[in-house]
């Protein structure tokens, strides 16, 4: 069941540009939905619209099937982690976390226990008596997160709650938040520009770019079949290879070699082939060969960057082979997954497949 639904939402800031023109989305009850997109694409605005902190210029917002356009934030009972933390500077960490509970008349013992539990999970126990001014950015961010998770809310909105943590802490917090979500089963909308967070935590991912939803789906769906070249290049590290191929004598060719792609619309003269780095492997007997430029050693495997004709290309290799600059390497394409894009519309050509 959809617990949050946005229908034809338009948002324009006072005499500013239009952020959303006709945005439609629905968030399923109990899901951990991640909204991912580059900086400035409207993620925070979207979250604030759901929280009731921002009025829409058009369209409808339904929460639990009730039209809530005019319901103010304080009547929505939604917990939120603010991107800029919004901690009260005159309260200690413990007071900040427990403040909402106290205002809603919770018992002292209950507040204390909840704050204690949250602090343990967030590794903040040592800082409970400090003031925000004495905390690092990452610590403040965890306090902001703590303030949301002590609440008993049906919906949790989190605006980049881990963006300021170091890599190790971020990895632990990802697991903690996933566990917490599994425990509470509360609907969570989580905003990030970090695709690792999106891929690892989400039941459902919404990719947002320039105020337009590019794709909605599970991590798997989005990773294996990006709906357009933006999603293809945004999700995945390093991003999907996007190789231009054009028709020669009716066949799509790359580096002069025919590729055997079928079901391409007849009027398509060019197309873009999408290939994940792990779907390309080195081989001795391929007429398609790249020139190695840089090798990134990731430990378990390595990313070999280079050029194919004039186009950049990268593949993943886990064989510990030694590559050197200028070396020519034959390439083999894994043809199990078909991703082809129209260079004009940038959209995926749904029918086209490898033969």
């Amino acid at each position, binding site marked *: 069941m959809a617990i949050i639904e946005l229908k034809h939402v338009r948002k324009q800031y006072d005499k500013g540009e239009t952020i959303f023109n006709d945005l439609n989305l629905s968030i399923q009850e109990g899901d951990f939905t991640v909204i991912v997109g580059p900086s400035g694409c409207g993620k925070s605005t979207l979250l604030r619209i759901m929280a009731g*902190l921002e009025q829409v210029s058009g369209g409808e917002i339904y929460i639990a099937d009730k039209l809530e356009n005019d319901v*103010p*934030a*304080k009547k929505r009972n939604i917990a939120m982690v*603010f991107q800029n933390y*919004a901690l009260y500077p*005159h309260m200690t960490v413990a007071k900040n976390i427990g403040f909402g509970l106290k*205002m809603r008349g919770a018992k002292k013992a209950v507040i204390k226990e909840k704050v204690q539990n949250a602090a343990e999970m967030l590794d903040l126990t040592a800082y409970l008596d400090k003031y925000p001014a004495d905390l690092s950015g990452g610590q403040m961010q965890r306090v902001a997160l703590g*303030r949301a998770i002590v*609440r008993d809310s049906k919906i949790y909105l989190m605006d980049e709650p881990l963006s300021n943590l170091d890599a190790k802490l971020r990895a632990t917090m990802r697991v903690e938040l996933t566990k917490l979500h599994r425990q509470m089963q509360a609907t969570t909308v989580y905003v990030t520009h970090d695709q690792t967070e999106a891929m690892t935590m989400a039941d459902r991912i919404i990719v947002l770019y320039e105020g337009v939803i590019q794709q909605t789906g599970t991590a798997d769906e989005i990773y294996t079949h990006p709906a357009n070249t933006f999603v293809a290049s945004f999700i995945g590290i390093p991003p999907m290879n996007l190789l231009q191929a054009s028709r020669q004598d009716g066949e799509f060719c790359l580096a002069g070699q025919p590729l055997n792609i079928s079901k391409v619309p007849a009027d398509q003269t060019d197309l873009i082939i999408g290939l994940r780095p792990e779907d390309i492997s080195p081989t001795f007997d391929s007429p398609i060969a790249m020139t190695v430029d840089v090798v990134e050693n990731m430990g378990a495997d390595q990313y070999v960057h280079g050029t194919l004709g004039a186009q950049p290309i990268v593949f993943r290799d886990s064989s510990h082979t030694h590559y050197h600059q200028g070396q020519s390497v034959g390439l083999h394409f894994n043809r199990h997954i078909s991703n082809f894009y129209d260079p004009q519309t940038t959209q995926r050509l749904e029918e086209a497949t490898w033969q």
Partner: protein
Amino acid sequence: MAIKPNKWTLLLFLAIPLIPLAVFWIFPLLVSIWLSFTDWDYISPTFHYVGLNNYTQLLSSHDFQAAVGHTLYYTVFSVIPIIVIGFLLAVLLNRLKYTYKFIQSLLFAPWVTPMIGMAIVWSWIFNSQIGPLNQVLHALHLPAPQWLSNPQAAMWTIIIVTIWKNVGWAALFYGDAISKIPRSLFEAADVESLSIWQKITHVLIPLVSPTTLFLFIVEILDCLQAYDQITVLTQGGPAGATRTLLYLYYELGFKQFQMGSATALSIVILVVAAILSFIAIRLSRHHVYY
């Protein structure tokens, strides 16, 4: 690259701005302290040293003790309403975005208009026969006191005029402080479903506490120095009911020409002001968030 100034250059640059301070403040202060140990009468060229006599006489005099009481009463009942009303005004005005500039200048007007002129207008308003205030009160069948000739009411006319003069100024300071609080703190309070009252008491008031402290000190000092409204409206009367410490100082010095006692009193006022400021700053360490 920084040039390291030598000690004397530094001293020189420090000393120059200190000259006016020395001429207009430190020097007169020293002269006052010295005068307070004499019986100079403001006119004659001769005087005698009387030691602490001025102080002992002053502190034990009935006039002085009464003036302390009046000053206290006047200060408490002026400063508290100024701060409370100023704060409430600022909260209300904060919601009016567009007319704000106009209202700001309106609020500032009483503070910059000379008090003498305004006090004359007020003395007409409070006039018990022809004043508009009592005419309104009569029309409403409310008690209309003899504002300026009844001792109790006279003090309140002074208080009302002082509040009227200072409240807009306080509201401006609060308005500025409120506008500097990040909006997201109130949004966080909204998300936590706080009521308006909870937002004011738990978020707004603590966050403007530096302004509250500042206003407390400034307004107390302003009350200690109140003179214009007293001299125009009541001249310390009736029967000394509005004679504050400063007004007593004026009477001692420039009506009774007891310059020694007057300067002794001025030193007492100075010490009281200094102690009050010190206490306020001390308290602030525990209750003010910066």
